[in-house]
């Protein structure tokens, strides 16, 4: 369980995180989604006390991270930027981390096997591929058998096999009742892994909802209709809650009316349909739509709040 309450992080003039509040519950995989630079990593760093919040507070399993006597047993974290000395072997890296919590060789070997690094465990980490580095990061996170697992972009640099492996691992951890909090800037990946989503943009909460709800919330599900009698159909289905647009001749995009209903109306009036297709916005579309405001806001602000570019620059 992770609870963030009004988290703020300022770096000088810039505010990276602006009053984030959310809860990450045990038993499910929660995706932490946002465009690059939205403040995901900063938030994760604040959760484990690497960065001090400028305001607000965050607790893990009921206490601030640093308040736990054995923090690695509570929370395992893998940060996006590598956190390993390149001159040390994976085995010694894990041994040194574990030693702070009295975790010995046996558990180190166990997590090394779990992430499939046994053959390279005695080699210097500097020679590791990106994917091997990610696996070592995951091994470090699982070392203390923590109740809460936080992973920042865990599938970056993994091959398809590895991506699938991580997906299953995360689901497995959640199924054991653990809290799993995973960041990504890839909506499609989250759709396959996560059940719940916390979406942020420019350091602000955009959505805190289930994946299913998120798609519904973000997209106007529409129906694409192709018919040689399109103009006539358009007038027949018109109504107060229905919007119809047409970008090419003979094709209508209808929102506010289900495809079944459109089909019935067409049949009643003996209108020929070539195509009647419900369009479901993909998660990626939903994500883009959701975060668009955040991105637009940034752009307009940078250019001088809506002024013509030239004027904005000179005014600034």
């Amino acid at each position, binding site marked *: 369980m992770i609870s963030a309450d009004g988290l703020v992080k300022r770096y000088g003039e810039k505010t990276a995180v602006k009053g984030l509040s959310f809860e990450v519950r045990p038993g*499910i995989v929660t995706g932490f989604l946002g465009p690059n630079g939205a403040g995901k990593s900063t938030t994760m*760093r604040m959760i*484990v*006390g*690497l*960065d*001090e919040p400028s305001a607000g507070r965050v607790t893990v399993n009921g206490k601030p*991270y*640093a308040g*736990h*006597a*054995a*923090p*690695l*047993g509570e*929370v395992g*974290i893998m*940060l996006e*930027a*590598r*956190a*390993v*000395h*390149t*001159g*040390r*072997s994976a085995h*010694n*890296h894990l*041994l*040194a*981390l574990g*030693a*702070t*919590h*009295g*975790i010995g060789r046996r*558990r180190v070997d*166990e997590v090394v096997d*779990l992430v499939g690094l046994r053959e390279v465990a005695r080699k210097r980490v500097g020679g590791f591929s990106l994917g091997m580095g990610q696996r070592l990061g995951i091994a*470090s996170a*699982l070392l*203390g*058998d923590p109740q809460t697992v936080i992973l920042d972009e865990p599938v970056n640099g993994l091959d398809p096999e590895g991506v*699938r*492996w991580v*997906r*299953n*691992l995360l*689901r*497995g*951890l*959640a199924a*054991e009742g653990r809290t799993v909090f995973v960041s990504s800037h890839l909506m499609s990946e989250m759709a*396959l892994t996560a*059940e719940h989503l916390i979406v942020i943009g420019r350091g602000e909460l955009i959505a805190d909802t289930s994946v299913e709800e998120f798609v519904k919330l973000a997209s106007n599900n529409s129906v694409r209709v192709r018919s040689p009698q399109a103009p006539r159909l358009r007038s027949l289905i018109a109504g107060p809650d229905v919007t119809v647009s047409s970008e090419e001749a003979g094709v209508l995009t209808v929102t506010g009316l289900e495809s079944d209903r459109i089909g019935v109306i067409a049949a009643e009036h003996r209108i020929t349909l070539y195509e009647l297709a419900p369009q479901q916005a993909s998660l990626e579309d939903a994500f883009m739509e959701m975060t668009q405001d955040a991105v637009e806001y940034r752009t307009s602000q940078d250019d001088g709040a809506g002024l013509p570019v030239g004027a904005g620059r000179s005014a600034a």
Partner: protein
Amino acid sequence: MSAPTLASSIETPHVPAAHVQVQPVTMRRVLASEWIKLRSLRSTRITLLVAFLLMAGVGILYSAVTANQWSTMSAGDKAGFDPTLAALRGHMFAQLAVGVLGVLVVSGEYATGMIRASLTAVPKRLPVLWAKSLVFGAVTLVTMTIASLIAFFGAQAVLTSQNLQTTLSASGVLRSVLGAGLYLTLVGLIGVALGGLMRNTAGAISTLLGVLLLLPVMIDLFPSSIRSDISPYLPGNAGEALLSPAQQAGYLAPWTGFAVMCAYAVAALVGAAFVLKRRDA
């Protein structure tokens, strides 16, 4: 959640039913962790070996050359010769290796990102700095004291040919020989502190070399009246007072000088502790 049908057909990684006994973080455990860190880096072992060879070897070499040239040396040179000082000459070179190693013990973690792993394991942070200092300090003290003893006995052996040798029981000699180990340990700890203060290898090494090598030269440019007020209190000069059997002109008394250098090291470490605690990692 709906289990995807595909997943069941491929190998599902199973988190082993772990029998992990996770224990609270204690100073003893952090020390154990730092000891693993220190000994598991090849660069550390090599740098320490270099420091050892310089400390043990340079003094013997210098003594051998001196013994060889003794008959042709001027009376002034002969009068200024001290068999203990000659044996401990290596400290001037060894201190560079030890200081660099001290810096790297901390700055290496910042350079590689390892510090984030270290501080998530020990979120109270300060135990990491204390444990690093203790482990590195102890290893340096032991190895450099051994090197110093080797340098001393080796040098006396080669000086015997000209009957120039001294013994550990002579006045101030044992203190000087053991003092070399103490001096080098303090140099290393100042390196640790600078690494923590600056979090940057190049910057911290430059600063350390500046303090040890450049500062004394710069002070020499001042008029002697000012020079004599400052020079003995520079970190290097103060500590080196401990390495001389008899107190030399322009130096503090041995243990006074050592205390002054200890004060520098403590101040630097406290500064590093402050930065570690206050700044985001």
